[in-house]
């Protein structure tokens, strides 16, 4: 015992206490510095995460917000009966025989007349080049109007027509005078004309409603491309997903949660659901192609096929959310129902299910939001096609070819014109707005109706 005392004495006596408690020694300082570094790393990580989100959203907004404005030219077009209705009896069939080639000269003349009236002239600019300011889509719009209103032939009607893609790009900063010198599709003289027309109020840049309603347009006419078909196709698919996956998911969850015995079949079902939740989305696309299109012969690029594939993808999400909601209902409710004389099925359907409804609906909305953003499986069932007509009304409309919002974005990024990049970003903004809305509804539902037992 004296040895130990001696050893501790010697340890204490080996050196007097170095420094006071209030001065940190080297090792403690190192540990504190390491702690501060660790904390800093954590803060940097959080900052990187938040910055990534901000950077992503800013980049998308910067690129896409300009797609919501579009340049239009206002021209008064004289609908010359000599060119449009040679027989003079306003017969729709005869009028329909005049193709858009017949309407284009009318536009050329209208613009030339306007320029003459205002006294605008740019040297080096021919009439044909001046007419190129108007989008190539405009003759088709004109023709559609005339076919709908045949009595307007012979009158002078004022139209608000799309300006061509390059002119639109000029007012959004994509095209400059320097780049116009090298560009095959536009010349600096055309830009100068556009400026003069803008000064006169003939050319305006305003909010672009047609972005939401117009169908897709060809590669050379980005100014006319719109999301109408894509939004409708996505809406149809969400409808199919809702109608199919909600009953199936809730039914499967009720079975698994309330009625399933502990046997091999139940284990198999649960393992399958957990696996399906982790399968990559492209494999569901392959399944859709092999089973729904090749085996069952459903039409390609149809909302019904997309809806079926997305249903299979959303089912695990809904099942997991519904099971959590059912588990959250306390057993006392079930016992009380049984105690009053209800059968098991009655207690589930009359008591447990209504109480779990808010959680089920929240899970469904979140599942739908995830399905809305899926692209890969839709690409494989043929939705990469260019669709110009709106799908019909349900139920036949489900079998018409259509597009979907995320697929339209992908489609547009594959095209060369930078105006399409702007439109793709604009479409993503629309998609994100829908998603934010759906998630907000889910959160509000949850806040309002959720009960804490």
């Amino acid at each position, binding site marked *: 015992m004296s040895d130990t005392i001696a050893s501790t004495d010697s340890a204490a006596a080996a050196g007097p206490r170095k420094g006071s408690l209030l001065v940190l020694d080297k090792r403690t300082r190192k540990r504190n510095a390491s702690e501060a570094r660790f904390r800093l*790393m954590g803060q940097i990580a959080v900052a990187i995460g938040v910055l990534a989100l901000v950077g*992503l959203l800013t980049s998308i907004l910067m690129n896409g917000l300009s797609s919501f404005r579009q340049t239009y030219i206002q021209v008064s077009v004289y609908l010359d009966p000599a060119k449009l209705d040679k027989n003079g009896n306003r017969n729709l069939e005869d009028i329909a025989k005049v193709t858009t080639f017949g309407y284009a000269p009318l536009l050329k003349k209208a613009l030339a007349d306007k320029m003459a009236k205002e006294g605008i002239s740019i040297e080096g600019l021919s009439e044909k080049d001046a007419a190129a300011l108007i989008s190539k889509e405009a003759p088709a719009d004109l023709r559609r109007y005339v076919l709908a209103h045949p009595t307007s032939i012979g009158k002078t009607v004022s139209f608000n027509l799309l300006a061509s893609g390059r002119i639109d790009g000029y007012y959004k900063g994509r095209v400059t005078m320097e780049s116009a010198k090298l560009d095959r599709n536009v010349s600096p003289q055309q830009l100068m004309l556009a400026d003069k027309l803008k000064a006169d109020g003939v050319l305006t840049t305003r909010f672009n409603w047609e972005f939401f309603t117009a169908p897709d347009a060809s590669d050379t006419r980005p100014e006319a491309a719109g999301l109408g078909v894509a939004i409708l196709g996505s809406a149809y698919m969400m409808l199919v997903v809702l109608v199919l996956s909600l009953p199936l998911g809730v039914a499967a969850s009720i079975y698994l949660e309330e009625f399933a015995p502990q046997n091999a079949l139940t284990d198999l079902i649960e393992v399958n659901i957990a696996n399906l939740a982790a399968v990559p989305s492209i494999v569901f696309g392959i399944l859709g192609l092999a*089973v729904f299109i090749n085996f069952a012969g459903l039409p390609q690029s149809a909302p019904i096929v997309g809806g079926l594939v997305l249903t299979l993808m959303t089912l695990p999400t809904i099942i997991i959310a519904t099971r959590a909601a059912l588990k959250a209902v306390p057993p006392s409710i079930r016992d009380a129902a049984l105690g009053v004389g209800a059968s098991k099925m009655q207690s589930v359907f009359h008591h447990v299910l209504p109480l779990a409804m808010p959680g089920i609906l929240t899970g469904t909305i979140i599942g739908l939001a995830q399905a809305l953003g899926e692209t890969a499986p839709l690409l494989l069932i043929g939705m990469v096609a260019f669709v110009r007509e709106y799908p019909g009304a349900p139920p036949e409309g489900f079998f018409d070819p259509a597009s979907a919002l995320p697929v339209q974005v992908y489609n547009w990024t594959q095209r060369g014109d930078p105006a399409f990049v702007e439109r793709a970003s604009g479409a993503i903004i629309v998609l994100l707005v829908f998603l934010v809305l759906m998630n907000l509804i889910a959160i509000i539902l949850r806040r309002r109706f959720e009960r804490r037992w």
Partner: protein
Amino acid sequence: MSVGILILIVLGLALLGYFVGRQRALSKAANEGRKLHSLPSYYGQFLALFTAVPALILLAAWLFVQPMLIESHVSGLIPDSAIPEGGARSLVMSDVRRIADGLDALMEQGGLGEEDLTRMRADLTNIRSRLAEVGIALGSNVPVEVFDAAKTYRSEKNTGSLLMTIAVLGLSLAAGGWAFMRIRPELRARNNSETFVKALLLGSSLVAILTTVGIVGSLLFETFHFFQIYPAKDFFFSTVWNPQFRGGSDLGILPLLWGTFYVSFVALVVAVPIGLMIAIYLSEYAGRALRNLAKPAIEVLAGIPTIVYGLFALITVGPFLRDWIAQPMGLGTSSSSVLTAGLVMGIMLIPFVSSLSDDIINAVPQAMRDGSYGLGATQSETIRQVILPAALPGVVGAILLAASRAIGETMIVVLGAGAAARLGLNPFDAMTTVTVKIVSQLTGDTEFASPETLVAFALGLTLFVFTLGLNVLALYIVRKYREQYE
């Protein structure tokens, strides 16, 4: 009669059956002076279920089986002589289908009757121009056998449709009638209809198994076809990926696997440290204000669709990396590269890793932390030496799940990593992955039965096996090494 109307009729019959059954039960009880076993509505439910469910199941099965039967029968009718040089039976069959549709259109618009159609012959009438009048375009003149096959197809389809309508309605009425006969006051209607409903619930759960069976079955089936026309050894061991439109392609999976793993590796290098540190900081260090602000922000990253990330990679990250890093250093000139896709994929995986790690770290009991603090450790020492080792199996499981997600990701790599299949080490080069090639092979113009298209199924099967394996491995590791506290 169209399928939609048939379904509506069956449902209408079921609704009618509900009221009829209920009424019968009540009237029988009144006549016989006895009390009903169950509530009256259950007798109605009993009758309605029997009327609707067997008929709808028969309808679904018929719609599934009928096209297969008709196709195989009509396909057998076409002699080999009618198949053009270098063509395939399937192309002739699609012509048959279009001619059949055209004949329907002719009947509707051209005012032709059934008699005229049966008398129409390919060698006497110019079928091609007749069909062009109603909007069906054909590539060449119609041989006699093909036209006869089209007529047979059409008539079989119509007969099948008629038989289906009769069978479905008949079953609906028969089952409903049988159930009607059984309605008596002693009938345990509630028990019977509840058993029926329980069977329906079990059926819905089986959809999950059916989906997996469908996935595995379709992948295996087509992969088997693929390995019949392309040697499996070349597929798994060749290092060249070069599909040719005309055949003679080299379809080796190794460059694609390399690209997949490289991109996923970069993504994990970005996501795991950042995600883990975010989870640690938010659960151990951050105050409530920061947690309430940062956690939802990170969750938002999880909810953004991958096409948005893809576009971000394409228009912002790619050009940025190329202009500021790759070109000045002379490492590459492409804006689609492994680094672009890996970086963006890492950003996408950050919330995934972060939320999984958060759950795991919170599961470590407070007693261990308190013990460590009691011994004088700083917070970071506690985390590094006590909590992380305790949470390690869970964290490894989270990393494996994130890897599985990264391997299966499509849109980011389609838009960000390019389409060049190569085995390289330069992260600024474009390298493609398995998922990109699945998309490009299945959305191209090649014929379905060619090896260039079928290879996509083989690729899909490989991908499925990999992700499944990773998930199973993650689950196994977590289960085996998880510490059981309490």
